[in-house]
């Protein structure tokens, strides 16, 4: 059996007993400090995905596709996951915990489980429109740019959900702007 790099976790991260066959810790992005990437078993990940409202209605095959294209990460409070003005390379789905959305340092929203963050930059390749910071310990699903398009093309249920999300954001903004 192959085992990953099984280093002891630093004291500030809570580590549940590993349920997977192997646990790998990867330092993914130095800009954001340490990202601890937990390789849960495939089935556990799919089970987890199926509980997120965004993926409601997805078939088992579709969930498997999402699981294959994404990583589950655990972040500590205060971690900046999206930085306003920067280029975006990934989209996030909040699985557990809450994140704060800030625009020019002013808090504009709090998001929780099932909410999507950062998909705009992946769709139009523009800079991040806001910063997003973990408010609590957060479990997030990360989909990297190079997987994102494939996922929305191959998981129509998700594409349609995302479309509805964008549509409602357009309506909200539109209403707040034009009254």
């Amino acid at each position, binding site marked *: 059996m192959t085992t990953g790099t099984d280093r002891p976790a630093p004291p500030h991260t809570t580590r549940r007993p590993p349920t997977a066959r192997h646990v790998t810790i990867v330092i993914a992005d130095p800009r954001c400090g340490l990202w601890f990437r937990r390789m849960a078993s495939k089935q556990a990940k799919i089970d987890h995905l199926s509980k997120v409202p965004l993926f409601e209605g997805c078939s088992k095959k579709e969930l498997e596709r999402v699981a294959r294209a994404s990583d589950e990460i655990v972040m500590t409070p205060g971690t900046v996951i999206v930085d306003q003005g920067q280029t975006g390379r990934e989209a996030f789905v909040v699985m557990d915990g809450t994140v704060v959305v800030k*625009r020019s340092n002013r808090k504009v929203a709090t998001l929780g489980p099932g909410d999507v963050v950062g*998909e*705009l930059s992946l*769709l*139009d390749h*523009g800079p991040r*429109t806001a910063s997003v910071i973990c408010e609590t310990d957060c479990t997030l699903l990360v989909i990297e740019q190079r997987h994102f*398009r494939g996922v*929305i*093309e*191959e998981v*129509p*249920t998700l*594409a*349609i959900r*995302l*479309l*509805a999300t*964008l*549509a*409602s*954001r*357009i*309506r909200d*903004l*539109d*209403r*707040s*702007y*034009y*009254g």
Partner: protein
Amino acid sequence: MFGKDQHIEHLRQLPLFASLSKKEITAVAKASDEISFPAGHELLTEGESGTEAFVVLDGTVDIKRKGRKIASLGAGEIIGELALLDHTPRGATAVCATDCTVLVIDRRHFAPLLESTPALAVKFLQELAGRLRALDRTAFG
């Protein structure tokens, strides 16, 4: 009457459908119907739910919000397309300013198309993302 070929041409001119293949755009055209309305007809009403989008083929349509005219749309423009994607009430009223011929796309026909045509869903997502960003900029500077 405009023929199916002209419907396809009109649809192709919309940024939303511009990058679709011939086969995909033909499917969109098939899912839509051409209808003519007299001046004064309300295509959609603010606050009411709706399931249709309209592509203007001929004539002018006024867009009003709370009774105030905010835009005037002509041939080749699309109205009410958000209703193809969600079930939220209309955000504005659209009234035919002249006699109009429009292409009606209903969610019932469009939803299966979105599911079977990934390119359409992706294009739609990109288009909405662009619009959201533009709105975002006007709203927050």
